[in-house]
């Protein structure tokens, strides 16, 4: 019997869907084992097709993207009811991802910016999207745009997490194989990633070095052998879960933290404050500040992918 599967995107970019296709010819093995009954980016199914299914009829649903509006939440709840196993696929569903950077703003401030303040906006009537509007006697409805972006597990119960922006295709294969073979770890586990930090799988040479200047990748060509953090680049390797195969790092680009925090770490970005401050050289307040001046936008750099899953979750209002 073939398994029944579904893939959905909430507030995401489609990169996770593409990552599923990036498993290349292995997609044929997957198609042999799974009937995809719902996959909006690839196949034409409607929400009503899902609504018509029995509860728990899906064996596996991969949900990528964060919860940004009421549609994302509605479908998350619908799929939760209809599936036996729900996997948060990718950084957005797992820890909020890039969309959750908007949590440092409010819905109002974003609408103001986008619909009236940008240099290219021409909107003299101040038209903004409405949840309900009547056009020629017909009602139109849009999902509610939320003030706060949420992770998938902040709105429904999630069985497994497959991190990454996007997840490495091989890790998707590994996870799917585990599903097919019934070899899944305990509920709530991270699948398709390791348990150590990225530094543990990073091939670069590390020594005990104090950092006395913060640099940016656009201003330097990093040494190909040495630790990027020791070269003064902000690399989130020390606070990020391994499993990506150090893709960015091997290309000379510092880690941005998409695989999320390790077990028992409550807040990846805040943890980075701890990690980074530990390896800075200066001991005097003024010298410390001079080094810190080199970090452009520390909060969003450290929380690039994990704002929704962080302790404070958003800017206070």
């Amino acid at each position: 019997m073939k398994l029944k599967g579904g893939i959905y995107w909430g507030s995401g970019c489609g990169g996770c869907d593409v990552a599923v296709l990036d498993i290349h010819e292995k997609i044929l093995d997957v198609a042999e084992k799974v009937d995809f009954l719902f996959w909006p980016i690839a196949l034409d199914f409607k929400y009503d097709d899902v609504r018509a299914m029995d509860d728990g009829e899906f064996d596996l649903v991969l949900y990528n993207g964060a919860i940004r509006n009421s549609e994302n939440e509605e479908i998350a709840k619908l799929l939760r009811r209809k599936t036996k196993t729900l996997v948060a696929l990718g950084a957005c569903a797992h820890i909020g991802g890039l969309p959750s950077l908007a949590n440092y703003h409010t819905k109002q401030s974003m609408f103001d910016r986008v619909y009236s303040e940008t240099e290219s906006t021409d909107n003299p009537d101040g038209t903004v999207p409405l949840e309900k509007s009547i056009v020629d006697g017909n009602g139109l409805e849009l999902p509610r745009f939320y003030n706060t972006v949420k992770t998938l597990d902040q709105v429904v119960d999630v069985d497994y997490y497959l991190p990454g922006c996007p997840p490495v295709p091989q890790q998707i294969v590994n996870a799917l194989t585990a599903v097919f073979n019934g070899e899944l770890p305990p509920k709530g586990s991270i699948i398709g990633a390791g348990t150590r930090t990225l530094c543990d799988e990073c091939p670069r040479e590390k020594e005990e070095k104090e950092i006395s200047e913060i640099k940016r990748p656009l201003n330097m060509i990093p040494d190909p052998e040495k630790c990027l953090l020791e070269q003064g680049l902000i690399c989130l390797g020390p606070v990020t879960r391994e499993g990506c195969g150090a893709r960015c790092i091997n290309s000379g680009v510092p880690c941005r933290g998409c695989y999320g925090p390790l077990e028992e770490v409550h807040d990846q970005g805040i943890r980075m404050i701890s990690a980074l401050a530990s390896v800075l050289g200066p001991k005097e307040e003024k010298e410390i500040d001079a080094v810190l001046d080199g970090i452009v936008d520390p909060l969003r750099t450290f929380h690039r992918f994990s704002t929704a899953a962080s302790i404070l979750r958003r800017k206070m209002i």
Partner: protein
Amino acid sequence: MTFEPKIVGFLCNWCSYTGADLAGTARIKYAPNIRSVRVMCSGRIEPTFIIKALFEGADGVLIAGCHPGDCHYQEGNYKALRRHRLLQRILPEYGVEPERVRLEWIAASEGERFATIVNEFTEQIRELGPLGVKESLAEAMKDDIDHHEEHIEESGAANEA
């Protein structure tokens, strides 16, 4: 009802906690608003502890360690200083006044100084008012409502019937 600030103090075992102890044995009166947590070193105080304390309802956090050069573990208080400087830069981005997280060096012999700092800090937080992270979060999310929920419940009930 008057606002009584809740302050969490992370005090290093070797200097500041001993200093607080001295304030006690010397019977120096100081504001009862501080809840002291003894840690082995100010270098052990992760910014996560501070953020967690603020999230759980603290209006202010005091970190106290040995004076520079006096750390029992040589370097711990410098780490605390660097973390504090960096944390101070991100707190305003959260809408949290950086004054709510204060770093002080208090030696084992400075019971008087400990009391003065606690009193001063308590008054400073009293002026800033309550922080209310959880209340703010609830307020920010009160309109984030999936209004299809009821609809689904209804159709679910209809199906069962």
